[in-house]
């Protein structure tokens, strides 16, 4: 038994070595995927689809067609017994065997800022403690040496609290690399695809590659002495950041962001808007072993005209997410990638006079898809009017611990915080939803 594991581990390492020697991506990826499947310490990457503003669960993942709260949308059936989705998620409905839907999120915060912080870090703001967001925690756990950073945020959310995209006490090394400008608060200005670029990745105007090379060599040579005589975080961190930046500027790494390398038909399927193209970019980054990528879709704060807006947003989300699942599957990456779709809270089951739905943290939904989970499963249940959770109330720590376990990480692992106290990846009281884990 143990010999088998050793053998498979060795094989796995060989594959890794081969990949770092620069064999072409198309050749080694499927091989790596199958090798990793047998590895007992396997870790999964994560794509977080961040639904900024708080999506309406009633119109998406927990429809109530028989109740007046259900609104005008039909519910469509899926291959999973008991799983109905809002009518504007018809493509995703055909992927139900890849989804685990949590319908019993029960959280406390109805304020965008605090709720965003809560969902993204697993904690409520607590004095001086600088909690890192999930992406930074994962990047810290998965410090493998690659050309790309461990946490990349595509069209970073326009956040109500900047702490909600911070590496906190883990330090700037684990802060997200931002790609593209902030996701627009209103999806309607998002037409056309936008440009997904890392800021300042290209050389300054007038500086050719030769000169850039000269400058970097000069920098290395002339700062060597200072670095050597000032050992510590300051010089080491500076050197690491410049080295990572330099690697990121290399054509091979920078090409990860070049979506023109993808077939036009595939780009069309993802959707020619920033979010769709962002999901495609996420797949390219995951393929290059970035452990955590988030892509933001803003506009879910639908206090008025909810149904028109949700329909439009679903028309962005549905093709992007389902194409992403298809694409990952085709490339043998699906089982290695957890795709999470969540916002900071849900919305009121009741419909307000402006045909809108307001903030509602008491009973809402989050969906996990892809690897590490039991596809075709549903956790928890809300009542017939959607107002309360009737089964398996799920807290933020419960959710975070579940995600971490699906990624192959130990939620009890501790990091030293800025206030000199060890803090676990997820709150020790968390009760992970083991019933939906693979």
């Amino acid at each position, binding site marked *: 038994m143990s010999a088998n594991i050793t053998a498979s581990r060795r094989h796995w390492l060989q594959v890794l070595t081969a990949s770092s020697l620069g064999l072409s991506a198309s050749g080694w990826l499927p091989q790596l995927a199958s090798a990793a499947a047998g590895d007992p310490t396997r870790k999964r990457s994560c794509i977080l689809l961040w639904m900024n503003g708080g999506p309406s669960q009633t119109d998406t993942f927990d429809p109530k067609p028989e109740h007046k709260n259900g609104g005008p949308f039909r519910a469509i059936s899926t291959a999973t017994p008991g799983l109905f989705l809002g009518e504007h998620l018809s493509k995703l409905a055909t992927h139900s065997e890849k989804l685990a839907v949590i319908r019993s999120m029960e959280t406390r915060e109805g304020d965008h800022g605090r709720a965003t912080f809560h969902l993204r870090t697993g904690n409520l703001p607590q004095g001086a403690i600088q909690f890192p967001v999930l992406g930074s925690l994962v990047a810290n756990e998965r410090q493998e040496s690659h050309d790309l950073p461990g946490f990349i945020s595509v069209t970073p959310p326009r956040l109500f609290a900047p702490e909600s995209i911070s590496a906190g006490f883990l330090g700037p090394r684990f802060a997200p690399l931002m790609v593209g400008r902030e996701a627009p608060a209103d999806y309607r200005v998002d037409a056309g695809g936008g440009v997904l670029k890392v800021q300042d990745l290209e050389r300054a105007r007038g500086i050719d590659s030769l000169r850039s090379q000269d*400058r970097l060599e000069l920098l290395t040579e002339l700062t060597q002495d*200072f670095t050597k005589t*000032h050992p510590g975080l300051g010089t080491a961190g500076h050197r690491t950041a*410049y080295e990572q930046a330099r690697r990121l500027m290399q054509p091979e790494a920078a090409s990860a962001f070049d979506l023109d390398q993808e077939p036009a038909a595939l780009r069309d399927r993802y959707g020619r808007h920033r979010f769709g193209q962002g999901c495609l970019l996420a797949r390219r980054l995951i393929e290059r072993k970035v452990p955590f990528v988030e892509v933001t879709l803003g506009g879910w704060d639908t206090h008025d005209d909810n149904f028109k807006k949700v329909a439009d947003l679903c028309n962005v989300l549905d093709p992007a997410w389902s194409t992403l699942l298809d694409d990952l599957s085709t490339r043998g990456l699906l089982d290695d990638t957890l795709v999470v779709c969540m916002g900071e809270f849900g919305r009121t089951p009741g419909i307000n006079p402006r045909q809108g739905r307001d903030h509602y943290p008491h009973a809402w939904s989050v969906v996990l898809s892809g690897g590490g989970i039991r596809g075709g499963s549903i956790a928890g249940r809300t009542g017939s009017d959607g107002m309360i959770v009737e089964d398996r109330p799920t807290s933020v720590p419960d959710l975070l611990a579940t995600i971490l376990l699906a990624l192959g990480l130990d939620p009890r692992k501790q990091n030293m915080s800025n206030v000199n106290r060890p803090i676990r990846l997820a709150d020790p009281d968390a009760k992970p939803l083991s019933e939906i884990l693979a």
Partner: protein
Amino acid sequence: MSPLLRVTIGLALLMAVAESPLVLFAQTPSESELAAKIDQRIEEVLAAQSVTVSVPADDYEFLRRASLDLTGRIPTVREVHQFVADQRADKRAILINELLERPRHAMHLARVWRDWLVPELATIPEARYFQQGFEAWLAAKFRDRIGYDRIVQELLSVPLPGTKEQAEYVFRQADRPNALAFFAVKDAAPDKLAATSTRAFLSIQLECAQCHNHPFAEWRQEQFWNQAAFFSGIERQGDGLFAPLTEDPLRRSVSPGEGKPLVSPAYLFGRGEQLDPKDATRAAFAQWLTARDNPYFARSAVNRVWAMLFGVGLVHPIDDFHDQNPASHPEIFEELSQSFAAANYDFDFLFRVLCQTKAYQRTSVWTATEVPDHRLYARMATKGLSADQAWDSLSLAVGWTTTTKDRDADASDRLTGRRRFLEQFTPRSWPADPETSISQALSLMNGGLLSRVTHIDQSRTLIAATETPGWTDDERLTALYLASLGRPPQQLELEKLRQYLSRSSDHAGRYEDIFWMLLNSSEFRLNH
């Protein structure tokens, strides 16, 4: 022993020490005596651990460090020349006094305290509108040499304009000095105001007790709400940071949550004083907080100033005093705190004492293989720069001056540049962690700002260095080094740079490259 009993005894001991300074110290030592005592104690600890100390910093290193620490930016080329040429034996002490006299010192101190008190001002977009007025308020206090205890009293008991019937907006002119930012940005919320006050002024973290009893220090949940109750009359009339604030002096209790009984104000510790029902609660809280016999008040401030200068607090993290987080040098801590209180809570007193210690004046260079714990102070720590320090130093190094031209388009460009820079480089802590992110590196390597200021047509420094007639290459290089790093290049560096210049016919371009290298170097980006 019960936790409560333990903390009571602990506090009693602290109080005893605080109340009887005459027994411990026959007279208040002079500044230089105090500095000598600090050095003596630090050296005893170093000797006990057989750690050797590094040599004193040379004039260049000392000037750059003191300028950054006391005025928030690097020295000018002229200041470097003057200081190095100065032959007086006590020129370092003279420099310290001069730096403390500058208006920039008050502004720097104001910005540091801004980050400690209301860090949101630098990070939340809407809160930035309050920044200028709040900094100006603090800077005016520091410039007028108002004691720290009085500043805190004024801040906490600042009158809130208007009444519920006639609410007044929080500010009409963003740049007029005012302290209301503190209340507005904390959402006028009693719990936030109490938590910030005890953390900022006493280094006691009560926030964890907001939801449950504190796991490490022995603060109970009720005590958290007792403190919040001092702020219970404050109310915001409307939504958003700019909505009017009012105070109902008759409301003297706070609700910890729906359905829970109201909690009244009660001092966190002390000799059992009761709050007089006639007293204004905030003013009473401020009096108790800043009282001479509150042992935490002076210590908290001393620890912060120490961390500003040494990169790490005597107690660290700096805002978390409790039993299990002892001071590295308790005797120093105690004596400094008492002297600070005796000096009427004058920060400049602390700066004068600490900056003249040998510990502060040691070089940051370390060549031995084993790096000692920096809480031993064997060498000067390498500190990060705050976004303000980095921006002001960069502006100075490239030769931007504040002249009438500031009103032109270029200046407004620069303001946008400053805003973006501050957003990108604002650290999440003070003293700033000396860390660099990939985005920061990319921005300095390739970004528009750096490429503009290292363009031969755009930087006065570069123009002066390259176009002054009659200079040799060595003199031009020296000018660039002095402007950016505050020191001349060493022989070995000159040799490498001469070679670099000779490898291309584009002389101006090569100078641009060298200036780019200097501004991207860790030596420029760090305070060492």
